[in-house]
């Protein structure tokens, strides 16, 4: 390969690509420290944390109305939590089912995957039409919740499917042949082994649901979730408080990622200690 020239070129290109990915967020983070009289653009008149105070309701007087994030944040977290529990449970259960080939497993597989492939606007519209026809009131904990599960369940399912593909069946069989009940076997043998997968499935479900917007837009009814509250501010003039909000949500997401990373690390450390005992 003529990699003497090609390799550095591609490396430089990748660096520029990463700048392209991160550039807007970096600019947004810088502008979130704009002073009180500055707008959502350069130049920075003075560095301040005014817009963070404004976002948290600590600023006293303001020409800009506060972002309606308080209640909607709680709703979004509750919805993401509900979705996580249901999607992960469903994902684990159906991945268990798919360990053996059953009649109609092909169509069932594609039917599950369909949920993550259909654009959110379309399912959102469909759900809104359905609830109109059936006379069901639209609410974030009802119609939106169903769509969030339909969306995140395939992700949890695929993660668990990948985990079960590498699963050593003999440990389960050993447990069963020793007379342990299937329920006990799942709890004491299977579940601890698949736990990293469950954790990943939960992470996927939570973050996807927390940020989901298109599916919620037509189905949330009166009470808004966080992405809807943000979307509402798009139509009016934007102020740096939305940038401050962006920085804080990014920090929140990274905290989640770090917690996930720590749990994963702790688990793999425990697992390697077990295998170390086996060697000795």
């Amino acid at each position, binding site marked *: *390969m*003529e*990699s003497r020239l*090609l*390799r550095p070129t*591609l*490396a430089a*290109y*990748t660096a520029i*690509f*990463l700048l*392209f*990915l*991160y*550039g*807007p*967020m970096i*600019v*947004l983070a810088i*502008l979130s420290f704009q002073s009180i009289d500055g*707008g*959502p*653009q*350069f*130049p920075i008149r003075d560095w301040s944390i005014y817009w963070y105070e404004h976002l948290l309701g600590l600023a006293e007087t303001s020409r800009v109305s506060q972002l309606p994030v308080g209640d909607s944040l709680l709703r979004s977290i509750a919805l993401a939590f509900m979705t996580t529990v249901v999607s992960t449970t469903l994902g684990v259960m159906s991945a268990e089912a798919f360990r053996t080939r059953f009649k109609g497993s092909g169509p069932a597989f594609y039917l599950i995957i369909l949920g993550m*492939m*259909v*654009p*959110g*606007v*379309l399912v959102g*519209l*469909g759900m*809104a*039409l359905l609830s*109109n*026809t059936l006379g069901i009131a639209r609410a974030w904990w009802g119609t939106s919740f169903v769509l969030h599960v339909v969306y995140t369940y395939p992700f949890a399912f695929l993660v668990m499917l990948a985990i079960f593909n590498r699963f050593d069946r003999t440990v389960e069989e050993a447990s069963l042949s020793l007379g342990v009940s299937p329920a006990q076997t799942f709890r004491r043998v299977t579940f601890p082994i698949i736990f990293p997968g469950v954790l990943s499935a939960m992470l996927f479900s939570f*973050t996807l649901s927390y*940020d989901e*917007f*298109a599916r919620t*837009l*037509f189905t949330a009814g009166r009470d808004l979730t966080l*992405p809807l509250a*943000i*979307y509402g501010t*798009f139509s009016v003039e*934007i102020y740096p408080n*939305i*940038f401050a*909000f*962006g920085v804080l*949500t*990014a920090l929140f*997401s*990274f905290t*989640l*990622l770090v917690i996930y990373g720590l749990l994963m690390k702790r688990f793999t450390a425990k697992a390697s200690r077990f295998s170390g005992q086996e060697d000795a």
Partner: protein
Amino acid sequence: MNSTLTTASWERFLSSATYLGAIWTTLRIWLIVLIATIVVGYPVALFIGLFVRNKTLQTALLVACVIPFWTSFLIRVIAWRPMLGTEGAINMILMKLGIISEPLTFLLFSEFSVLVGMTQIYCVFMVGPITFMLGRIDVSVIEAARDLGASFGTIFRRIILPLSMPGVMVGSIFVSVMVLGEFATAASLSGRKTNLLGNIIVSQVGSLKWAFAAVAGVVLTIIITAVIALALRLVDLRKEM
């Protein structure tokens, strides 16, 4: 809701230049973004998948590509405004460098900003699958070709490109589905100049014209089904994976 069966909404949709124009806009934006994500993403995937031998560095680069996905989608869209605006970062830098004397106005609230925003947001869905396929290429095959005197151009055309095609296809399906169902990027970056089918659905639902929104929804479903059917015809996914 009115429950009489009627084709009035269909007639109105198919006879209106605005709505037929939205179909055309949707297809055009989809095609440009699809090509842009392939062109922008392929070299990155080539570098990460084939040129980086160190597994840790490979993972680190992939993680670096994925991290922006853990921030809110709407925030990532809105982040392009201070970047591209007339008083934005790009104009400021270009003016400081003396390349331009007047701020460029076509950057924001135009189709251009929608294309840039969508390319940035969806590019990773192209990079991921291609990197995955490139990473599976047996290096000895490339070495054998090189020992036999093949230039990099030939190796790329005859070995790397064909073996990475399933990745390009999977990426294309991801990007297509997401771009065709888009409306938020167009709504917040185009200044209402770019109307996709998704935007029409949103605005019709907003004014409670359910039947009309349903027509736009059916049209969009037909387009997406056709695109995916075409992509699956080009590559047999089950055989390739």
